């Protein structure tokens, strides 16, 4: 870790001003990712702005029936919140699929949105990495690619986003509330993370000086039919190889509305709304789910070591949709997959 200055923000405006004042400043919330990266010498902030004093921990009901989650609400607080469990069980389930109880107690909602990739080359400062050191190259391409992207990768970067929570947020069409030097704005969570393209150093669409203040979830009809299915190399406390967040609104035997978001496959939680729309009215059955999977993976491309992710995620999509359709979401404690 390199020495840095430390300050505590008392107001959101304080934090924004500090971020604007120093391009090398970083906001610190739970610290589970930032402190980790600082110790590995991947990130070297000159200034740490501790936002924990800010009043952003609450989870409140919105007038229209949705929920607003403060950016500092811990992952545990969200996952075990009775309202979240009742209205957005997919989110609770995805959070509980990730990390460990200790990390979930510390990690914040905003921080989880800003989680960095686990690409082993990104994490090793002695290797080229366009995300860590723009223009230095990508050591992952042609290297150990077992955990890397099969969708939306670029010649500059094949890293994946590691979050579980964000996959559910994307499936739930959440809105990220941010505040910056030009005031507050909303960013649809689907537009929050970005594909690497030519600028893999940018994980998201936050502008300089912007701070996440909360996440908004609109009321939906998915609470009965959802599943978060995560496939990983050991049964807990491991980053996903692939994951699927699936929700369906069923009318009779047909799909009225369906959303499928994929984790571990791309630089952002992967979702294809156009494809989803095409299945409105289709029967909620195995054959449809197969077609959904095929459609989502039309452009999937392996890197060699990770070729297996394509058939794997295809099967995981079908399975998660089946779980969702039958109203038997994946348990995050019983590791048997129905």
């Amino acid at each position: 870790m390199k020495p840095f200055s430390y300050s505590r923000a008392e107001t959101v405006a304080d934090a924004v001003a500090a971020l604007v004042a120093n391009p090398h400043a970083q906001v610190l919330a739970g610290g589970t990712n930032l402190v980790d990266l600082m110790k590995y010498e991947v990130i070297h902030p000159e200034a740490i702005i501790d936002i924990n004093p800010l009043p952003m921990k609450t989870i409140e009901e919105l007038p229209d029936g949705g929920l607003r989650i403060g950016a500092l609400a811990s992952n545990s607080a969200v996952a075990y919140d009775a309202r979240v469990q009742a209205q957005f069980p997919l989110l609770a389930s995805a959070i509980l699929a990730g990390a460990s109880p200790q990390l979930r107690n510390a990690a914040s909602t905003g921080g989880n949105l800003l989680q960095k990739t686990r690409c082993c080359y990104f994490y090793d400062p002695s290797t080229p990495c366009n995300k860590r050191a723009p223009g230095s190259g990508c050591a992952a391409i042609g290297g150990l690619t077992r955990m890397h992207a099969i969708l939306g990768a670029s010649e500059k970067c094949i890293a994946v986003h590691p979050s579980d929570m964000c996959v559910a947020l994307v499936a739930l069409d959440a809105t990220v509330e941010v505040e910056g030097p030009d005031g507050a704005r909303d960013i649809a969570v689907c537009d929050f993370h970005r594909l690497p393209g030519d600028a893999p150093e940018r994980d998201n669409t936050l502008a300089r000086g912007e701070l996440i203040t909360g996440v908004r979830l609109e009321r939906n009809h998915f609470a009965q039919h959802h599943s978060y299915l995560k496939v990983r190399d050991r049964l807990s406390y491991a980053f996903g190889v692939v994951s699927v967040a699936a929700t369906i609104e069923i009318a009779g035997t047909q799909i009225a509305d369906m959303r499928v978001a994929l984790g571990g496959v791309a630089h952002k939680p992967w979702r294809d709304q156009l494809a989803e729309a095409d299945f409105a009215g289709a029967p909620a059955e195995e054959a449809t789910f197969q077609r959904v999977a095929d459609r989502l993976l039309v452009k999937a491309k392996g890197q060699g070591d990770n070729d297996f992710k394509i058939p794997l995620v295809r099967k995981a999509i079908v399975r998660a949709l089946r779980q969702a359709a039958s109203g038997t979401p994946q348990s995050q404690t019983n590791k048997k997959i129905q």
Partner: protein
Amino acid sequence: MFDQSKVVGLPISRIDGPLKVTGQARYAAEHFEPGMLFGHVVLATIASGRLIAVDVRGAERVPGVIKIYTHENRPKTAYRDSKWKDAVALPGHPFRPLENDRVLFDGQPVAFVVAETPESARDAAALVHMHYTAELTHTDIVAEQHNSYEPPVARMKQFLPPPPRGDAEQAFAGASYKISADYILSGEHHNPMELFAATVRFEGDGAFTIYDKTQGSQNSRDYVCGVFDLDPDKVIVRNDFVGGAFGQALRPKHHLFFAVMASLDLSRSIKVEMSRREMFYLTWRPSCIQTVSLAADTEGNLEAVLHHAVHATSRHEDYQENVANWSGLAYKCDNVKISYEIVKLDLATPGDMRAPGAATGVNALETAMDELAYEIGIDPLDLRIRNFVHRDQNLDKAITSKALHACYREGAARFGWSERSPAPRSMQEGNDLVGWGMASGIWEAMMSKGEAKVRLSADGKVTVSAAASDIGTGTYTILGQIAAEVFDCAIEAVTVDIGKSDLPKTGVEGGSWTAATTGSAVQTAARAVIKSLLTHAQSMEPSPLADVTDEQVEIAEGRLVLESNHQIGIAIADIMAASGLISIEEHAKVGPDMLAMKKYVSYSHSAVFVEVKVDEQLGIVRVTRVVSAIAGGRILNPKTARSQILGGVVMGIGMALHEESAIDHRTGRIMNHNLAEYHIPAHADIHDVDVIFVEEDDDKASPIGVKGLGEIGIVGVAAAVSNAIFHATGKRIRRLPITIDKILESETAE
């Protein structure tokens, strides 16, 4: 001995337990000295090449930095290799930190920073910039196996393959049933939970007390005395508590070298603690390629066994372990050919990791046995029973005891093996294919030379001392039990003093020989105390024990009494008072019975049964049941013994499903050097494990009948898991670990 034991054989809770559960047990990095300095190592980021320039300017500017050592300014050390060879050294050139500008492996220590605080040392180390000329690296054993060779100097002669017997090739060619396959193990790292560390207290005048993470305090002491020309009488190495090791702490590591080097150079106390990443550049279980060919007649009698193994070593040392010889002795077969080679890779020197050699080689043999059973169409357990052997055919020696039949019988009964439907893919539960697999395990039961001291005080208190180590093995507790048994006292009356180099000579804690060796030494010393006590008793006037020998007496309820009549005897306190003593201390040396060892060889055995549930579409394997039946001689403490086996089973599950040090062969660098991506089993991966210790009396394996349990628990486990996966899915996956991708990409066998 211990026939009517009151303490030995009971499930006594660890006597060091209360210190461990309250955080009071202090490990190597947890000692403090006023004015202590802190060191941090800079690691190479290439796997092969030379250092051409070192830039320490940025690092030197970090506040609190005292000195930065590189190969250009390191203090003088011993010149001859012999001074660097520790008790577990290998043929070849021992690694010397900062020896010169050569980089031999990824993560090699190339500089060492000393500072006033650990954070300054760590952060300055990150600012040391090394410039290299990198050379082409070779780290892939599959690609390099053509360069393998027979080690010109054997590490131990028993690691050399036995001479071929019969004509294995011909028997194989003519047999009714045969299989031949290649088995590949990826490299593994031990990853004990405690980080390697040394705290060196500089005491002046050449004296040091060093707290080191080591499996042998005397090995560390002798190493630093050799390298730095120190007086062994002035150096004490302590390892009171060791946070796991599994073989990785057998040989002294670079942290110890650096700590002592800097302490000597700067005349200050110092602490050096490794990072988790740094521990991926130490000893590892070598990657290994094996070819096993088995043949049998129509009834399943083995007619040929051929086993060829090639494992990795480093550029500078010839690491060797007994991978393949097990195939010549595990089952009865008269046509056997075993060959063994090693291959140099640009990696750190591998080393012993829990059941070194056996975990790798028996895994291949036991997978091959399963393949053969399917080829013949007989039950895998029946195939093993049919080929049971009472002799070691490699050495042509008798085996001291082999209750393996009982392991098969009791293990199979507990598991319910008879309910197994033999065909692959024939057992299903929802989306899960269910598989039942089994394997046998074997490990050499070794006893080495060892010493111990036992002191009995007039008040009945007992002190046991030896330079042994408890690395989680329960050594404190079992030594206390043995002494308590001999002196008929509560274990609370016994103080066990181990983990210090100035105590009676003891070898490194490894190979499962500590209980047999130090346990026997303690028992012998305790009996010597009784003998001495009797001599003093006989000098009393009158003495009711005047005409008896020490074999006729024992201690009961604080008195030295006739074994045949406890009414006749004298209180210990009275004997000592009469002789003006406050305590009696005796020292004992033990070693293997060389005469018996000419005729006998001793092994521990196991049968392990595993149930897996495999979600084939998603490639997920869950190990839902394990029964491990162990024939390991006398069990001194069933509670700690069971834990040893549990640990072996869990590490075996890790070997089967999770563990792999992932190397980018383009650069020769290990890329998953952390506990998030080098997966060891977590709580969720481990269901209940049923451990059975079968009855096994053995009066030759060691004087106290103990065979040792540290290794046997892991042997065969990975094969049992892999065989269960085959039974579940029909997929024979011969490269470990069996990860999701391998399940998905493997074909189902015809």
